[in-house]
């Protein structure tokens, strides 16, 4: 199966971008040329140069270093929120699909209600309540994405529930929990994985948007969205500030999208376009 993913050129490029990002998270202290939080009044809003590869912001902080460290914040928040959404979605969807009847009804109505909000709006509302902090962003984005996972798992569970091997397991006296986790869930794996990669791409975009609005990781922490928000005030005098964080966001999301598409082609050919 891996050979087929690798054979898809675009998917391979996507995977390499993702790996590069992951590596960057770990080697950030060695790649960054300066301390991302260090204020340098002598070099405020300086254009890109040998010393400051991407230029500096209004406090004189090196943008290259901030972008490099920004990968940590942006990616970790996205991964954690998708993980949270995945776990809660699997549990909710599993319970909903397996037990059916009124439990299913209530849970699905709640999921529908959550999905009635435009995603960013729901995230903003939750951040308004919880306050700007990294872990709150994880909660907010997790809440936004978990209905989609729940629906997916519920659908898979419903389709597998009536099959004979489940009946056999029930007849043998296997507990409900074991049936759900050992027999039913493995069937949802393919669409789940595809949904995970898609959600990771959206999560990075959403986290950047939240930070841009000032509702994400609080300053002075460098998140890609944060840096762009600062850059906005200096667009006329320091246009370089707007370019690089955006390129970083675009590349990361592109990586997940390319890899996700390749994964989907391999795992679920019915969805192939």
């Amino acid at each position, binding site marked *: 199966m891996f050979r087929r993913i690798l054979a898809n050129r675009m998917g391979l490029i996507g995977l390499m971008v993702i790996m590069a990002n992951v590596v960057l998270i770990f080697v950030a202290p060695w790649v960054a040329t300066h301390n991302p939080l260090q204020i340098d009044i002598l070099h405020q809003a300086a254009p890109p140069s040998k010393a400051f590869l991407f230029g500096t912001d209004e406090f004189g902080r090196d943008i290259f270093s901030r972008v490099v460290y920004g990968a940590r914040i942006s990616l970790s928040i996205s991964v954690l929120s998708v993980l949270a959404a995945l776990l809660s979605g699997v549990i909710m969807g599993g319970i909903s699909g397996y037990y059916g009847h009124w439990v299913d009804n209530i849970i699905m109505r709640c999921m*529908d209600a959550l999905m009635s909000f435009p*995603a960013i709006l729901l995230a903003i*509302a939750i*951040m308004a309540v919880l306050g700007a902090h990294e872990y709150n962003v994880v909660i907010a984005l997790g809440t936004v994405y978990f209905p989609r996972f729940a629906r997916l798992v519920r659908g898979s569970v419903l389709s597998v529930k009536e099959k004979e091997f489940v009946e056999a397991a029930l007849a043998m006296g296997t507990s409900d929990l074991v049936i759900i986790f050992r027999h039913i869930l493995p069937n949802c794996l393919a669409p789940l994985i595809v949904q995970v990669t898609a959600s990771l791409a959206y999560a990075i975009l959403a986290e*950047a948007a939240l930070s841009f609005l*000032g509702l994400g990781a609080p300053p002075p922490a460098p998140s890609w969205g944060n840096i*762009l928000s600062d850059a906005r005030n200096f667009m006329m005098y320091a246009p370089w500030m707007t370019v690089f964080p*955006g390129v970083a966001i*675009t590349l990361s999301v592109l990586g997940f999208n*390319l890899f996700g598409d390749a994964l989907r082609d391999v795992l679920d050919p019915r969805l192939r376009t």
Partner: protein
Amino acid sequence: MIKYCVKRIIYLIPTLMLVAIMIFSLIHLIPGDPASVMLGADATEEDLNAIRQELGLEKPIATQFGLWLGKVIKGDFGISIQTKIPVMQSIKERFSVTLILTTLAMIFSLIIAIPSGIMAAVYQNSRKDYLFMLGSILGVSIPGFWLGLIALLVFSVKLGWFPSTGFVSISENVLEGFRYMILPSITLGLFMAAVVARMIRSSMLEVLRLEYVTHARAKGLSEWKVITKHALKTAFAPTLTTIGIQYGFLLGGAVVTETVFSLPGLGKYVVVSIYMRDYPVVQGCILFIAIVYCVANLVVDLLYSYFDPRVRYE
């Protein structure tokens, strides 16, 4: 058909109820006393009591919800703490801007998406198709607000083609207003264009293989007629659902786009109100946008059932 419409509308009510409950509980989930949260740390005891009276914060939660719901149904979304203006009035003033923005964005995105999606399907696996796929993946990867910033930088600041600050409403002066709306609409619509384009391409690919298309070609119809009159109609129905879902993205994206371009719309109002801790406004606006989105989805579902009658009998 009517029965289906009524059924769908009734189905909407419990969902809206849950939406209302969720929005109502937002304020009450904030840690701390709601009154001091809204007024800030240095509010006097009298101000706090006044707010508590006004919003009925002393009563049990179920009663509060009932009262709030009653007011909402009548169209009273409360009063802004900052400006003392009724929230509904502010919403009405600003929603027209957001509506124009999202509508223009949708129009732009469909203008780009439909032709390119059709072309990619017809010329599948050719160079054009490859470029299309590249373009569409890029379209969903670029953050909208960054695109807006870059567009502002290039077209307003450097080239001066479009204004970067200020605003003229389209209802006042169509041409001038349009100049202020072009950049925001295009940046907002790009994401949706990429998604819809891919959807159209995949639908068209499926439809073009069907028997009745071969039949149409065998009859001697020109390729153009085959594509537009026969294939496109069927391919369009599933795309409609995607468009409905994307409208939600447009509404959400409008929040960010309005902030980037400083447009006096509902989205920017929500964000500013959050900074100012004006929670009645935040509640009212989010409720309003959620209702708009639900209604839009309902319309899309009803339209879908018009195109594909099989759905009505489920």
